[in-house]
């Protein structure tokens, strides 16, 4: 349960992960469909397989700190997903957890820092720049919006809503881009005109966070 300031507890963060799992399941076919157009038709099944394993593990382990939780999430994704998204999502959560640490509850600034750390991890691993038509095109604006909101004193809940909206915009802005990273880059100019599947799934991730922090 969130405290008066709306800081996120480990429980809230578990709800986030559960919610992300639900959203991935719900949008699995859609993600694979997006990946069919400019990739290899597996992004939905990759994430579904990984998040199935994650929730099974999290439910069994019942982690009590953000650090524990995200180590489990990250390691499980790394070892069950494969593909590009396995190491990238895995790294995101491992870094997110490293930043969040063992604190019992995270305020907007701490959450923003964790999000930024996760994003930086993805960039360090994948070496993508904004505009390359990858998941960071949704994650980067989300992290930026979060920081702006948090600097302005927003609660985690409001920062998450701002981040979610920014992620959606970033996701949609991948449509006209010519991919320079990931499989879509093999298509050259033909990659333009289509949404990046990873940007779509990371938008679900931020949506899940906002859902988790807005439901009572």
């Amino acid at each position, binding site marked *: 349960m969130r405290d008066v300031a709306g800081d996120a507890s480990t429980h809230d963060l578990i709800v986030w992960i559960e919610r992300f799992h639900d959203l991935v399941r719900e949008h699995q076919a859609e993600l694979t469909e997006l990946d069919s157009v400019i990739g*290899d*038709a597996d992004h939905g099944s990759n994430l579904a397989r990984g998040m199935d394993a994650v929730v099974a593990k999290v439910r069994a382990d019942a982690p009590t700190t953000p650090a524990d939780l995200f180590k489990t999430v990250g390691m499980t994704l790394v070892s069950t997903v*494969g*593909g590009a998204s*396995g190491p990238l999502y895995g790294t995101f959560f491992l870094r997110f957890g490293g930043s969040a640490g063992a604190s019992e509850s995270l305020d907007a600034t701490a959450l923003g820092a964790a999000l930024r750390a996760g994003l930086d991890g993805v960039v360090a691993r994948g070496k993508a720049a904004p505009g390359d038509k990858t998941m960071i095109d949704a994650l980067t604006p989300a992290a930026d919006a979060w920081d702006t909101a948090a600097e302005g004193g927003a609660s985690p809940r409001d920062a998450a809503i701002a981040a979610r909206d920014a992620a959606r915009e970033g996701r949609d802005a991948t449509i006209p881009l010519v991919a320079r990273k990931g499989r879509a880059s093999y*298509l*050259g100019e033909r990659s333009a005109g289509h949404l990046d599947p990873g940007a779509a799934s990371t938008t679900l991730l931020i949506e899940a966070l906002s859902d988790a922090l807005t439901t009572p």
Partner: protein
Amino acid sequence: MKKFINDPADVLAEALRGIQAAHPDLRVDLDDRVIYRADATRAGKVALVSGGGSGHEPMHGGFVGVGMLDAACAGEVFTSPTPDQMLAATKAVDSGAGVLHIVKNYTGDVLNFEMAAELAAAEGIRVESVVVADDVAVQDSLYTAGRRGVGTTVVLEKIVGAAAEEGADLDAIVALAQRVSDNGRSMGVALTSCTVPAAGKPTFDLPEDEMEVGIGIHGEPGRRRVPLASAAEIAKLLVDPILADFDATGPAIVLLSGLGGTPLIEQYLMYGEIAPLLEQGGVEVKRCLVGDYITSLDMAGIALTVVKADDELLRLWDAPVVTPGLRWGA
């Protein structure tokens, strides 16, 4: 979707069971999804580990055996295996002489093998990697994911496998692998899409009168869609970009691989068109393979690989090999 499968989620696990049943020379770890030579790595022999998404059979599992790979990690269909699998394989085959990871240039493969190499290094194993990026359909650039790794991988695994069998050390193996990689180029074309079991329908729709040029091995669309052409015209579409990409004159090993749904009679017909074009281009085909060696599920398509090969590479190519997919000399 018309496939010989049960639940799409079980395709890989069940195919591995079949590989295990069919090949007593191999040991299949069904939990880690790694295919090993049944015998342990000889002391002092550098071990070769490859792997990648499934759906490219016989690559890589079919190239495990004497004179080729020591282990192959099998990912889900078209999905790179995970670092855990690669680490398990690396630890299992290292005899102390070090391990070469043979990686095809896809973001997923590169990242997962990178993580595995870091983990193995942390456990004190010497790991080196070679990344194959030979697909001339993709523009090579510092700012992109670069070229895909395709057919040269097969030739590399054979040649480097022979050198490892002969006792070459890890530095020599790395240099040799890089040499093969640098000297290989590939180009593919598809007449149909493939169907990923978990997706349940063709990755893309291709009208009866069109084809995709510059295709990879993951069912992704090619560089361009053009009207269906004759075998003679397609042969030019495959040969020309390769000859334009590097100086291919001189002795070479040539691989013409079906992509899974193309019958051998068509592959031979294509080779009949390709061979004279290569000759005109100054390529001296010293060895060649025609057949399904690196596939893309049930895709009707074909891919040409040309690897320039001097006498040493040819000698290593000719050395004995005993694997499900390539076998000679023993």
